[in-house]
């Protein structure tokens, strides 16, 4: 009898395992390029439509009289990276939502009607979180520059706009594919918002400041520093932007004026082990729980890091690499009382006749900092707009908070990427904007005005 039960038990374990595996892995397995069952679905269903949050069509499949299908992208270059393309290996939402787009949950009676008419079944539609108006302003504002804009809703994690330049026209993807692949220099196909790795420049002072507050919760407000335009320690010399002397500063002013000298000295005072732990908590050097393609932001910090490298790291230069997505996530957490919501692009899946197949709801990613820390950081970032490097956002009908950055990427010349990351309104943050403009100059001069245009569109009537 023992043997009978042994085998029966073994079989139940196996059956449970099989059911569980098959059901939980269905989507990933279906998206695997080795799975030929995709072709069955593709032959059976026409690819579903991708909509913006406002109902505008971002991608649809058109069938001509001969039955030939073409994928059409009405907004052409504007959503190139966010929506992506459905041929040549798939990218963007076309890749992310492929499983839904190639399946059809249309009513059986409609399928029968399709059969009679000799048509394919309509694939399910995907309704994204993207906002066409915001995307257009962000896209137009970047102009000829290379760079990236990502706009999210801090309380939910919805991605409202995602622009990356240089871009391409997904309608022409098959024709230009070979050229795009050959062109290694401009990396057109890279979605800079999630995959572009940049030196964070002064925007990283958000992280340095947070770590300083954590280590000195009672005394950080007593911080004072006399800036004469540069700071030296050993061989290493850190200059303030354009060599400006900021004079006597407290902590808030050093942050608002983005004083490199003060932050280099703060960096030296930090506990490098604790700093490394904070970086991990802020999702550096690790895989992200997001559904789309991204690169990991990198900065290693521990006791073995040299003084000179810590000084550089504290002001966002040196080896540090960050994606606009990562910076946006940290900013959004500050705006949302310290809690990061998981960024997402797909709101729901519907059949062609608008029956909801699957609804995605906001999901907490994790708490990045305490509520108190988030409040202190908000205060610092508000001062940047009121009296610091981001004053172009002050005196408006809404309030904003943020941090500029001018990240030097060329050791020889003083070229810099213009950064801004921030949110508005301060009292009840509704949008979180992160912008990088490659090689434009200072963040205050180039990135802040674009932010203003986006925020104006949101809050100015």
């Amino acid at each position, binding site marked *: 009898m023992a043997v009978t039960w042994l085998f029966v038990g073994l079989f139940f374990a*196996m059956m449970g395992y099989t059911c569980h595996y098959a059901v939980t892995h269905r989507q990933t397995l279906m998206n*695997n390029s080795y*799975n030929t069952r995709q*072709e069955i679905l593709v032959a059976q269903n026409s690819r579903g439509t991708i909509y913006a949050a406002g109902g505008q069509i971002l991608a649809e499949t058109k069938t001509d009289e001969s039955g030939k299908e073409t994928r059409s992208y009405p907004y052409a270059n504007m959503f190139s990276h966010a929506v992506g393309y459905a041929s040549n290996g798939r990218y963007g939402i076309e890749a992310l939502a492929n499983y839904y787009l190639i399946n059809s949950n249309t009513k059986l009676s409609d399928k029968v009607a399709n059969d009679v008419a000799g048509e394919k079944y309509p694939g399910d539609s995907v309704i994204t979180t993207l906002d066409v108006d915001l995307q257009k302003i962000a896209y137009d504002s970047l102009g000829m520059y290379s760079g990236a804009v990502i706009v999210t809703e801090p309380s939910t994690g919805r991605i409202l706009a995602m622009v990356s330049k240089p871009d391409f026209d997904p309608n022409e993807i098959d024709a230009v594919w070979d050229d795009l692949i050959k062109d290694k220099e401009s990396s057109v196909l890279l979605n800079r918002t999630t995959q572009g790795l940049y030196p964070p420049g002064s925007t990283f002072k958000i992280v340095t400041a947070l770590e300083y507050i954590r280590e000195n919760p009672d005394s950080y407000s007593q911080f004072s520093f006399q800036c004469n335009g540069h700071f030296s320690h050993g061989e290493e010399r850190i200059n303030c932007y354009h060599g400006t002397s900021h004079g006597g500063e407290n902590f808030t002013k050093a942050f608002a004026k983005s004083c490199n000298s003060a932050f280099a000295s703060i960096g030296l005072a930090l506990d490098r082990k604790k700093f490394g732990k904070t970086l991990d908590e802020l999702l550096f050097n690790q895989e992200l729980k997001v559904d789309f393609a991204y690169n990991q932001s990198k900065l290693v910090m521990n006791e073995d890091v040299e003084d000179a490298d810590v000084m550089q790291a504290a002001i966002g230069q040196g080896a540090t690499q960050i994606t606009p997505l990562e910076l946006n996530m940290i900013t959004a957490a500050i705006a949302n009382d310290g809690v990061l919501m998981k960024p997402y692009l797909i709101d729901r899946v519907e059949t062609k006749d608008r029956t909801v197949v699957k609804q995605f709801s906001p999901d907490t990613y994790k708490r990045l900092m305490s509520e108190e820390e988030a409040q202190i950081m908000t205060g610092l970032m508000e001062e940047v707009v009121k009296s610091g490097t981001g004053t172009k956002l002050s005196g408006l009908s809404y309030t904003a908070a943020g941090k500029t950055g001018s990240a030097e990427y060329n050791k020889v010349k003083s070229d810099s990427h213009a950064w801004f990351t921030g949110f508005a309104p301060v009292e009840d943050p509704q949008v979180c904007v992160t912008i990088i403009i490659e090689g434009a100059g200072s963040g205050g001069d180039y990135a802040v005005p674009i932010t203003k245009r986006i925020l104006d569109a949101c809050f100015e009537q």
Partner: protein
Amino acid sequence: MELYITELSKYFITLFIACYTLECFLVFRFQDEERRKGGYIRQNIWMFLVHFSCFLVICFETGQIEYLLFYVLQQILLFSTIMLFRMIYQKGNLLIVNNMCMLLSIGFVILTRLSYERAIKQFFIVTASIIIGMAIPFFIRNLKFLKSLTWVYAGVGIAALGVVLILGTVTYGSKISYSVAGVTFQPSEFVKILFVFFVASAFSETWDFLRVAVTAVLAGAHVLILVASKDLGSALIFFVVYVFMVFIATGRWIYLFLGVAGGSAAAVVAYRLFSHVQVRVQAWKDPFSCIDDAGFQITQSLFGISSGGWFGLGLFQGNPTSIPLVEADFVFSAVAEELGILFSMCMILICISSFIMCMNIALKLQDRFYRLIAFGLGVTYIFQVFLTVGGGTKFIPMTGVTLPFISYGGSSVLTTLIMFFIVEGLYIIRRDEGDKRARNRNQKRKRRREQRAGERPPRDREDEEEA
């Protein structure tokens, strides 16, 4: 219209097989085969409905009427098997026969879908095998000398496996078959039965340490020849069956423990020594890392199983032929893909119910030889099911054995049919034993009553002992 039939039939087919499966376990409520009769009849109805609906879908999907003819032939075969068996062996066990026919019909359905040509070939093999098999319970019941052929079984078995090793043809890296006059045999299948007979007869009289040692050497010879032929799945089956049979024959846990320990050690050694073992373990641990070569088969199998969902894609709606060797080693994945996970789970449960019935028979048999055979055949069967289903679902590393009754393969289906008919023979022997005891008891009672000169007429209590 066609779409309604294919879509709705998925749910009906699942419902029918679920009802059949339920009856498989409900019959265990009764000890008495007479009282199970209603359940068996209902099973036949569900079986017919599953088989019929599947072929209805096949005809609609392909639009070919010849499938209907093929279906009618199958129906005649299965119906006459059940009827003939009932007539010839009135003491037979109908659950075993029903399950056999149910599984065979699933096999016909899925093989017809995968390869019509092979399905037809399989049909003729099954027909011939059933004709042979029908006589087996009679021989098992009457040939008393089977018990004394101990060393003959071992000798023939080792010789047959040895011949394959030396002369056999290589298929997929393993030497497992050889051809005589155009017919390809896979002797390891038949030797399984001989092996069970060998171990059972060796332990039928004595089960001391010396016996264990001698049989271990001969069992080891079987296993080593199979390992040398690179037929790891069969080697594993022989090994496991031997260990469990020794455990049951001696009743000592130490042998089971030693067997498991020795088996694990052997597995580690095999992993170290043979690259083809390493490849398979790698393909099991992370098939997606080697999806181009070693992991291809298992990943294709997983794609198939997961794409079907609970109710399957429907016959001819999936792409099971993308799985290499799908009609032999990976037929389970094809069933899961097109007929659904629920259907395939029911199929496993039917196998389990056959196994439980077999173990029940073993438990109640008085004669050690027959008891060990029933036990050994049960373990052989269920362990093979475990290996093939587990291998295809990434539960355990892939070993490349067939799913009994469902997979394409003449040797496999003939062997399993013989095994099931032997079990029928054993069941009849058990009922004979029961009858004999009841008769003895009745005679004693009668004598006692005569002595006491009782008034009541003697009642026939023969059914009392029935199972």
